[in-house]
């Protein structure tokens, strides 16, 4: 029923009567409302930041579908990435550093175009800071060593990003078993990543709610944000307690054993040979 006349309005009063008390007229008529100007970009910015984190975690689900390099055994990927990083750091030989850089660039050929763009973008930012820091050294004539450091930084970041963008985090944590990381730590890593997502979703919903309710001027913006953070903290505490109870109900006694069965394919063998050759180059060149 639409309110067109005072008779309609009276009929509505008859309908909305709570405990013998009538609800005021405001609910039945449209507000004539013009919002005041306010700076409220902070909600959008916070929402965007959380969305970005969540989409980074969410995209992990699609990693395996993309291609050959993505399905390599994470144990090999993690081990060789760390080994190559160590050798790059140790190397004083510019030939080896350049060779490592080229070998990492070869990996990019096997990655998804969008990932390549992101990886290259991210990897170019930090060396710029290194360059700025090394300007005094370059001015004083130490050009060769400064260039080596910049190349080392660039190659290392590239390598880490290739690993991160081509491997699921859950698989990476499992691969930590190679380094004798205790199972309970791996379990905690896994839960942490999962709960960043769960709590991130809750934070996002609350920010959406805040945005929908932000229909005017809010002089206490940061009170609303602290309210959201407080609620989130309580929620994380509650969720943690509930999860622990659920684990106890399923027989958890503080010990946890992870079984990580990774298959080894011919691609993994090729990948190992490629990396062993690179490590050998460190000693030969």
């Amino acid at each position, binding site marked *: *029923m*639409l*309110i067109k006349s005072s008779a*309609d309005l009276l*009929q*509505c009063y008859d*309908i*909305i009567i*709570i*405990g013998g*008390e009538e*609800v*005021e007229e*405001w*609910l*039945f008529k*449209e*507000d004539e*409302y*013009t*919002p*005041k*100007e*306010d700076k*409220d970009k902070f909600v959008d910015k916070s929402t965007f930041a959380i969305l970005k984190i969540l*989409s980074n975690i*969410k*995209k992990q689900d*699609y990693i395996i579908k993309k291609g050959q390099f993505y399905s390599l055994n994470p144990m090999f990927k993690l081990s060789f990435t760390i080994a190559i990083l160590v050798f790059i750091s140790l190397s004083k030989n510019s030939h080896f550093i350049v060779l490592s850089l080229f070998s990492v660039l070869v990996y990019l050929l096997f990655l998804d175009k969008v990932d390549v763009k992101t990886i290259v973008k991210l990897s170019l930012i930090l060396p710029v800071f290194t360059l700025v820091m090394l300007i005094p050294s370059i001015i004083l004539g130490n050009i060769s060593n400064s260039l080596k450091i910049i190349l080392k930084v660039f190659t290392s970041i590239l390598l880490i990003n290739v690993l991160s963008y081509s491997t699921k985090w859950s698989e990476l944590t499992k691969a930590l078993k190679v380094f004798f990381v205790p199972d309970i730590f791996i379990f905690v890593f896994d839960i942490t990543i999962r709960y960043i997502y769960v709590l991130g979703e*809750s934070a996002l*919903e*609350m920010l*959406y*709610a*805040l*945005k*929908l*309710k*932000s*229909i*005017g*001027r*809010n002089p206490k913006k940061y009170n*609303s944000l602290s*309210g*959201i953070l407080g*609620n989130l903290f*309580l*929620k994380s505490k509650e969720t943690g307690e509930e999860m622990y109870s659920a684990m106890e109900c399923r027989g958890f006694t503080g010990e946890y054993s992870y079984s990580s069965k990774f298959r080894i394919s011919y691609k993994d063998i090729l990948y190992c040979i490629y990396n062993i050759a690179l490590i050998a180059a460190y000693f030969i060149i």
Partner: protein
Amino acid sequence: MIQLNNLSFSYKEISALSNINLTIHNGESIALIGANGSGKSTLLKLINGIVFPSSGSYLFDGMEITEDSLEESKFSKIFHKRIGFVFQNSESQLFNSNVYEEIAFGPKQMGLDEEEIEIRVSDCLKLLDIEALRNRTPYNLSGGEKKRVAIASVLALNPEVLVLDEPMNGLDPRTKRFIRELMLKLNASGKTLICSTHDFEYVDGVFKRAIVFSKDHTIIRDGLYNEIIQDEKFLIENNIK
């Protein structure tokens, strides 16, 4: 009032809504029906300007709602003032220190004077029968109480359209009956109601029109609520009953 033309929406590569054409008039009471994951909640988020269509258009009172148009602060605020959304998980909607502050949040932003704010909050507390909760912390309330506070906080904005995402979920029978009565009253007072629901037992008589979603995220039926709800075979076939 609300017009969706050839609207589709997808999360990354997964389609959530496909080719939706829908017109909703002022004062209607509409139930969105469909199995889990059929796209009901996504459509409600889209109607509220939380997410935006991948293709097609959404018009609210003749104005196109897009990410760009909602970037304009004034337009966005007027839009959000006119359309209120009660989330499925009402806990997410409550972030103030007590129930009074929660309900007064919207009216305060509207710049209403103290007296008017007090009237609105008191009326909403009365309407939702939660006067006793006035000074309680929302986080510590029961599920049903949180739902009532969330509805009250949205009603305090006096929206023309009230969108509810499965409002009966996880509530006890008395609260469900209460929300049914409330929806009847609000619709009778001229508010447009759009509500996704699975709880047919408790929404009897509330809705005039039903829109049914298929598992393919499209609308497969749009008609009178009573006719659709009596079509047992159709409901079972589509995993609704």
